[in-house]
C-alpha cells in the first residue's frame, strides 16, 4: 500500500499500539504534524519544552510499563531532548524518540535548524537510526520499538528527515523483527541458578539486594514469594522501590548513601548477597572495597556488562530477573533437600536485622517546626500508598524514598542514574496521561520545580490534575547539606531566595495554588488539594535547616553512617 512517510509513521505507531505521543512542533515536523491532524485515536500532548516531552514520555512509560513516545523537530528541538534521553538511558526506560531532521539533501550542510542528533545522542541511546529512504521507515520503527522494550530496555532515537516524511513509499509492517547482531538472553543458565541455590542454602546471613530490573521485568510477585519462602531480608535500590512491599516485615528499606541503618548493616555483615536486577551503582555500594566484604555475591542481570563491572561477582547469572527468580523457586520446590533447614537456620540473622531496624529506625527530630518527613508521612497516610509518586532530585527525592512506603511496582518515578533535576514534574504529567483517574503527586524542591515549571501550562491545557508538593526550604537543599557537612557552611550558590511566589504562579498558569506553613495545616490543605480535580501547586514552607539522614559520606563504607 502506498503512503506518505508521515502516514507510514502514524500507521506504524498504531501497529505498535501507541495511543499517546508527547510532542512539540517545528518546521521539520510539519508533514507529520499535519497527518496527525486526522489521527484522533492518538492522544497528542503538546508540551512547552522538548525536555518536558521526553520526561513526560518517560513518566508515562515508568507508570504504565509501555514504551513512551515523543516527537520533536530538528536542531534545537532535538538537542533539547538530550537530558531526557540520558535520564531514560541511565534508568533503562524504554522510549522511542522521533526527532525530525532537515531534508536529506541538506544534511551535513549546516542547514537551518540542523543538528547531528544521532552523533549527539549516540552515548546515551540504546540505539539510533537516521531514516534515509521512506521505504525503510516502517521497518525501522518496528525495530526501534523492539530494541527499546527488549533485553535491557532503553531509549531509541529515530531521526526522520522532512522529505522522508513527505515522500511516498510502500507501507508494509512486518510481524517479526530479526536482527542478527541483537539477541538478548532472557533465560538464566540452569547450572548457575542451581549453584546459586546451593550457595544460598549454605549461607547464614543472606540478603536480597534488588533494583530496577525487578520492576522492568515484572518480577515483584516472584521476589515476594522467594523472599518469603526462605525468609531472606530484602533491601531495594532507589530504582527498585515498590518492587517489594515497603511495609513488609522482611523489608529493610533502601540501601546506600541515604539508606537505612538496617539495610546498610545487613549488606556489610552478610555472607551472601543475592543481587537481582541491580547494578552496584556507587550511590548504593559506598566504598566498593568494603561493600559486603565477607559475602559471596550472586548477581542476576540481563545485561552482561553490569556483571563484575564494579564488584567482583562469584556466581553471575545473565538473564531476566523474573525468569531467574521463577527458576530458583522451581528448583527449590523440586529439590527440597537443599533448603530444608531454611528459614530456621538463619533465624539468628533475621532477628539481628529486626534488631537493627528497631534500634535505628528512620526518624527525624520533632521540634515543632514544619518537617518535610512529616509531610511525606502524611501523604502516605492520606493516599494509603495508592498514589503514583514522582520526585525531582535532591533532598525531596531522598526523603520521599525514605518516608513514603512504596507498596507496588511502578508507583515511584524518579531519576535514579542521572539524577536529573526537573524530571519529576513532566514525568508526573506523563503518568497522569497514562492513568487519568489515579492520584499523581510530584514531590519537588523549590530548586528543581523551577527547571521545568513551564509544563504547568501543559497540565492545565490537558486537564491533568497533577499535584506538585514543593518542599520549599529556599535552598538547593542537597548541595546545601554537603556544604554544611563538608565545606564549613559556605553556602555559595545554594540560596534560592529569589524564587517566585508559587501560589500566584500556579494561579497565573490557571492551576490551583496552596501554601502550608504550619504542621497543623498539612492534613487539611493536602486533603483539599488532592480532591480539587485540578493541576495544583502546594508550596510547603519547610524548616530550611533540615538534612537527609542517615548519610554515608561519599567514598566511605556503608557501615559508616551519619545518623540524625
Amino acid at each position: 500500500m502506498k503512503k506518505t512517510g508521515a502516514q507510514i509513521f502514524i500507521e506504524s505507531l498504531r501497529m505498535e499500539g501507541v495511543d499517546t505521543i508527547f510532542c512539540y512542533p517545528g518546521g521539520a515536523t510539519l508533514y507529520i504534524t499535519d497527518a496527525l491532524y486526522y489521527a484522533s485515536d492518538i492522544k497528542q500532548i503538546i508540551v512547552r519544552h522538548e525536555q518536558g516531552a521526553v520526561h513526560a514520555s518517560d513518566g508515562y512509560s515508568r507508570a504504565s510499563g509501555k514504551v513512551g513516545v515523543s516527537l520533536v523537530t530538528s536542531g534545537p528541538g532535538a538537542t533539547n531532548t538530550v537530558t531526557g534521553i540520558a535520564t531514560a538511558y541511565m534508568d533503562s526506560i524504554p522510549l522511542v524518540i522521533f526527532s525530525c531532521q532537515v531534508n536529506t539533501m541538506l544534511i551535513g550542510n549546516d542547514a537551518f535548524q540542523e543538528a547531528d542528533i544521532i552523533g549527539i545522542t549516540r552515548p546515551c541511546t540504546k540505539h539510533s537510526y537516521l531514516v534515509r529512504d521512506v521505504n525503510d521507515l516502517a521497518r525501522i520503527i518496528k525495530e526501534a520499538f523492539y530494541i527499546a522494550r527488549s533485553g535491557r530496555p532503553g531509549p531509541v532515537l529515530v531521526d526522520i528527515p522532512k522529505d522522508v516524511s513527505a515522500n511516498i513509499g510502500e507501507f508494509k509492517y512486518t510481524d517479526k523483527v530479526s536482527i542478527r547482531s541483537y539477541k538478548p538472553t532472557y533465560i538464566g543458565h540452569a547450572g548457575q541458578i542451581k549453584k546459586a541455590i546451593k550457595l544460598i542454602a549454605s549461607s547464614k546471613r543472606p540478603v536480597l539486594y534488588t533494583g530496577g530490573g525487578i520492576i522492568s521485568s515484572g518480577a515483584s510477585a516472584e521476589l515476594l514469594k522467594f523472599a518469603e519462602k526462605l525468609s531472606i531480608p530484602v533491601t531495594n535500590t532507589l530504582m527498585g522501590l515498590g518492587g517489594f512491599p515497603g511495609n513488609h516485615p522482611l523489608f529493610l528499606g533502601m540501601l546506600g548513601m541515604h539508606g537505612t541503618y538496617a539495610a546498610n548493616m545487613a549488606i556489610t555483615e552478610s555472607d551472601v548477597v543475592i543481587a537481582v536486577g541491580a547494578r552496584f551503582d556507587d550511590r548504593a555500594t559506598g566504598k566498593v572495597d568494603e561493600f559486603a566484604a565477607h559475602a559471596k555475591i550472586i548477581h542476576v542481570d540481563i545485561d552482561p556488562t553490569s556483571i563484575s563491572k564494579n564488584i567482583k561477582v562469584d556466581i553471575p547469572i545473565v538473564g531476566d530477573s523474573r525468569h531467574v527468580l521463577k527458576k530458583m523457586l522451581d528448583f527449590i520446590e523440586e529439590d527440597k533437600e537443599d533448603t530444608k533447614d531454611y528459614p530456621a537456620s538463619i533465624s539468628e540473622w533475621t532477628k539481628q536485622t529486626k534488631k537493627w531496624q528497631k534500634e535505628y529506625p528512620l526518624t527525624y527530630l520533632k521540634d515543632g517546626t514544619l518537617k518535610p518527613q512529616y509531610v511525606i508521612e502524611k501523604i502516605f497516610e492520606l493516599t494509603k500508598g495508592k498514589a503514583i509518586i514522582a520526585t525531582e532530585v535532591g533532598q525531596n527525592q531522598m526523603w520521599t524514598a525514605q518516608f513514603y512506603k512504596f507498596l507496588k511496582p511502578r508507583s515511584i518515578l524518579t531519576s535514579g542514574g542521572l539524577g536529573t533535576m526537573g524530571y519529576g514534574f513532566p514525568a508526573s504529567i506523563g503518568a497522569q496521561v497514562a492513568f487519568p483517574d489515579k492520584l499523581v503527586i510530584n514531590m519537588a524542591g523549590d530548586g528543581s520545580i523551577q527547571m521545568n515549571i513551564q509544563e504547568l501550562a501543559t497540565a492545565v491545557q490537558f486537564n491533568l490534575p497533577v499535584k506538585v508538593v514543593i518542599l520549599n526550604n529556599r535552598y538547593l537543599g542537597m548541595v546545601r547539606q554537603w556544604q554544611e557537612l563538608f565545606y564549613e557552611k559556605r553556602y555559595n550558590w545554594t540560596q534560592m531566595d529569589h524564587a517566585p511566589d508559587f501560589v500566584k504562579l500556579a494561579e497565573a498558569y490557571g492551576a490551583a495554588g496552596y501554601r502550608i506553613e504550619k504542621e497543623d495545616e498539612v492534613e487539611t490543605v493536602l486533603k483539599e488539594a488532592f480532591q480539587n480535580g485540578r493541576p495544583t501547586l502546594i508550596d510547603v514552607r519547610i524548616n530550611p535547616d533540615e538534612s537527609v539522614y542517615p548519610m554515608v559520606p561519599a567514598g566511605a563504607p556503608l557501615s559508616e553512617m551519619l545518623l540524625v
Partner: protein
Amino acid sequence: MRHTISVLVENEFGVLSRIAGLFSGRGFNIESLCVAETLDPTISTMTIVTNGNDAILEQILKQLNKLINVIKVIDFQGLDYVSREMVLVKVHADEKTREELLRMTEIFRGKIIDVSLKTYTIMITGDEEKIKAFLNLIKPLGIKELVRTGPIAMIRGDKTIKASEKHSKGGEDGKNVL
C-alpha cells in the same frame, strides 16, 4: 596488557563512530584500528589493538558485544593467530645509499614501490617486531615520511570466524608458514 580484538559489525554508516565513541566515552584506549569489508559485503571486520588489565578487557568485550550493530567479538588472547601490518616509508636515497636500501628491502621481503631522484618509497609488511627492526635499520639513512596501518589478525589453520557460528580455538595446521 596489549590485546588484539576482531569485531564483526554490520557494514552500515555510523558503526565506526559507535565503536570509537564507546572506547572514548568509557576511557578505553585504542592503539590502532583497521576496518574493511569482509567476503560478505554486509559485514565489516574491525581489528582493534587496545590495552588494559583483565577487568578492563572484559568490559571492552562486553560493551562491544552490547552494541546493536556488533555481530561478534573475538579476543585473540590465548588463540594461535597470525597478525600483519603494513608500512609505507619514504627514505632518502642517494648514490651512496641506494644499493644498501635495495638489499635491505629484499632481506625483509619488502618492495620499492616508488622511486625519485632523491627518494625510495618502500612497502613492507609483517608483524610489529619485523617492522620495528626494519625501521631501526634504515633510520640512519634518513626517513622522510612514514605511514603505517595497524595490525590485522586471523586465526591460524582451517578455523574461520563466521558471523553465524561460534568459533573454536585455532588449529595447528601450517604453523610454520611465514
